[in-house]
């Protein structure tokens, strides 16, 4: 059978062998955690605790600020030791709450509804909102918002994103294999809330075990489809995944709901299951700590806010000094200056590259070879956008597709002149946003 896919894209080596066969391991409790108030798209959460307060695991420590936002919870029990600006896993820094642990991990009271599927859609949605869940594949869009589509946009299909097209990362892979039933329950919850008739799980073909496990569980139910997808980056990008799995094209500048689809990452589905069944807030997730210089690459079930340095230590440290520290995957992740930052809700991986793998290549003149054009999954003209931004010609940048770029990095991956296309495009996006704000 020909595997489903999308037009454009690139084929980087997947490097998943480092951690693909490592079962999920529970990371010991960290002595301290740092919870950023900004782990999602939207307004940062507002702290509701003061320095010195005693908190339990799962206790709410920050409120959502407005509709597009999420609450935050303590991920260990202990004392609030600091509310200040800390390094952030996405590179810059953010106001965060530091909790110094008491080592007891005493939880707030959780419940258990074995018949959770009988709960009303409204109740499910509330529990998900209360649990502080946001998209765990990277972008971090508040899940509650995605579950509240306007009445004129009926949703008929829910797609679970189990593609994990970023090289190195295996967190979703292990989750689908070891928590198959729970992930499927998350999908069913999603379908119930949205009233969708069809549930699809998209998985890249390099994870045959996951595909088999999912198919086994869903074999008897006709409203579900497990869709194996071609190994091609960025297969897990929302619009590309929707196209590959359903042949529907999300309008440029639009949201998936415009074509009746909602996409959620598999880790998000798992968190939703725990939130609905146990009313358990999102305090931990699976993260791949991997790369050629990590002593023993692992998939860890770790508390949100655990410093990256502790994760690396638990994996036996490094074989040699790394050349680059990447929070997230190597195609779209952030290079960090140190291991000081904590893991957040969207942290699916921590990748340490060696010096040799991390060489930075010198930028040269554009040859106009059009490789970027041929691989762009959004059908844009990346080199033209970059050149226009460089020259300050925003009108040309916009015509060449500035706003439609999702920064997947395929263009920069193949550029023989090593032009930092994504960086230039990002600069253009920021400049454009400033102009728009100025106009208002």
């Amino acid at each position: 059978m020909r595997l489903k896919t999308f037009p454009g894209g690139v084929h980087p080596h997947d490097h998943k062998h480092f951690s693909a066969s490592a079962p999920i391991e529970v990371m010991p409790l960290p002595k301290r955690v740092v919870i950023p108030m900004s782990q999602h798209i939207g307004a940062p959460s507002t702290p509701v605790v003061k320095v010195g307060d005693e908190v339990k695991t799962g206790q709410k420590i920050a409120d959502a600020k407005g509709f597009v936002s999420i609450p935050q919870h303590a991920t260990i029990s202990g004392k609030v030791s600091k509310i200040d600006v800390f390094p952030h896993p996405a590179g810059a820094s953010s106001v965060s709450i530091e909790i110094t642990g008491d080592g007891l991990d005493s939880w707030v009271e959780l419940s258990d509804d074995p018949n959770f599927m009988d709960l009303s859609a409204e109740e499910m949605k509330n529990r998900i909102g209360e649990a502080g869940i946001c998209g765990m594949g990277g972008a971090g869009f508040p899940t509650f918002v995605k579950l509240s589509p306007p009445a004129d946009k009926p949703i008929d299909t829910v797609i679970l994103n189990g593609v994990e097209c970023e090289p190195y990362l295996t967190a979703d892979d292990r989750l689908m294999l070891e928590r198959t039933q729970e992930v499927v329950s998350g999908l069913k919850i999603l379908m119930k809330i949205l009233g969708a008739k069809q549930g699809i799980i998209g998985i890249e073909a390099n994870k045959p075990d996951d595909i088999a496990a999912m198919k086994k569980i869903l074999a008897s139910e006709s409203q579900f489809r497990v869709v194996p997808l071609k190994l091609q980056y960025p297969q897990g990008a929302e619009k590309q995944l929707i196209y590959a799995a359903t042949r529907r094209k999300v309008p440029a500048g639009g949201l998936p709901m415009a074509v009746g689809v909602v996409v959620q990452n598999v880790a998000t589905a798992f968190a939703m299951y725990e939130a609905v069944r146990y009313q358990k807030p999102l305090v931990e997730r699976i993260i791949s700590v991997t790369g050629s210089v990590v002593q023993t690459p692992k998939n860890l079930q770790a508390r949100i806010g655990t410093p990256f340095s502790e994760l690396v230590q638990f994996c036996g440290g490094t074989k040699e000094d790394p050349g680059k520290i990447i929070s997230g995957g190597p195609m779209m992740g952030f290079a960090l200056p140190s291991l000081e930052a904590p893991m957040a809700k969207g942290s699916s991986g921590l990748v340490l590259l060696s010096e040799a793998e991390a060489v930075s290549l010198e930028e040269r003149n554009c040859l106009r070879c059009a490789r970027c054009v041929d691989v762009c999954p959004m059908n844009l003209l990346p080199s033209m956008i970059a050149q226009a931004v460089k020259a300050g010609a925003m009108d040309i940048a916009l015509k060449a597709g500035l706003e439609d770029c999702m920064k997947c990095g395929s263009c920069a991956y193949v550029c023989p002149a090593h032009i930092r296309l994504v960086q230039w495009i990002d600069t253009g996006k920021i400049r454009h946003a400033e102009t728009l704000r100025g106009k208002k």
Partner: protein
Amino acid sequence: MKERYTVSPAPHLHDRTNIPNVMWNVVLALLPALGFAVYYWGWRSLWLTLLGILAAVGTEALIQWLRKVPIRISDGSAVLTGMLLTFNISAASPWWLPVVGSVFAIAIGKQVFGGLGNNPVNPALLGRAFLLASWPSLMTGIQTWKLPKTTAVMSGIDPRIVDPNLQAVSAKAYDLVTGATPLNVAQTLRDSEFVSTLAATKEASLDLGNRIFNGMIDLGTLKNLFWGQIGGCIGEVSVFALLLGAVYLLWRRIIEWRIPFFYLLTVFVLTFLFGGMAGTGFSLSVPIFHLFAGGLMLGAFFMATDYTTSPLTKNGRIIYAIGCGVLTVIIRLVGGYPEGVSYSILFMNVMTPLLDMITRPKAFGKVKK
């Protein structure tokens, strides 16, 4: 552990291609053609090519030094320009011809505009156009192609196919068949005044003209064209050798299929329709002759595909290639030159910015308004 690690924008992986890799691969793909040239024309073609390359690289280094920019001659782009320029002249040329051409190609065709990536037209073709305008007799004309020691029939046509007693019948016709390149023959046959002087009577002249035309598209001639036993520029002689390189470049994804495919297709269709002589009817041999003859293969795979001077957009590339094909056929069948590949590519080169603007692709999911 270090105090601070390198922070750089994503993506953090690269497929490790680079400019030298691209350029040297194209040079490699041109080597079979050079090998065939040496085989048919002798070592002189190699020396001329090396002179052309040396002049191009030297000029590039000198100007980069004067411009106070890093000297990048090792990236292979000047080597390629010098090589392509020399591929466009006869192996019988004087030694200074590739040197002058290469200096012009690099200095005026490329560095004046800011070097690699900034030139509006293909530097090698501009160099060739300069030579053609300055020394037309060295660049075209039947005498250009003769090498003292070659015995090959330049046109690839076996005189016996045309007429067993050709030499006896008409020295003029014999000269044409043995001394001219295939496209020279094709052009000369379009000249009715010349044709009428081939033999004693008008009817005999027309008949001889038609027979030469038929010899031109004879299977034996096409075979000679394919393997390279014909007169022509250094790099054009063997279709086979050029295709070898072209397949390699397509396989390594250094060139993309659209430009060569639509270029060759256009030439094929148009010469099938309009390439015959009065009274010879349609024949598939005519378009095949036109595909194999002259610089078309070299142009379609190695010159029109030049990154900098061809469109970025996929549809732009198609229009560009069709434009190249139409112009080539017009020049060959109607124009004053026997060959039109280089001028048509140069012309379409300058259309490239316009083509990029009018063929901007619609973003994924964008609907027409």
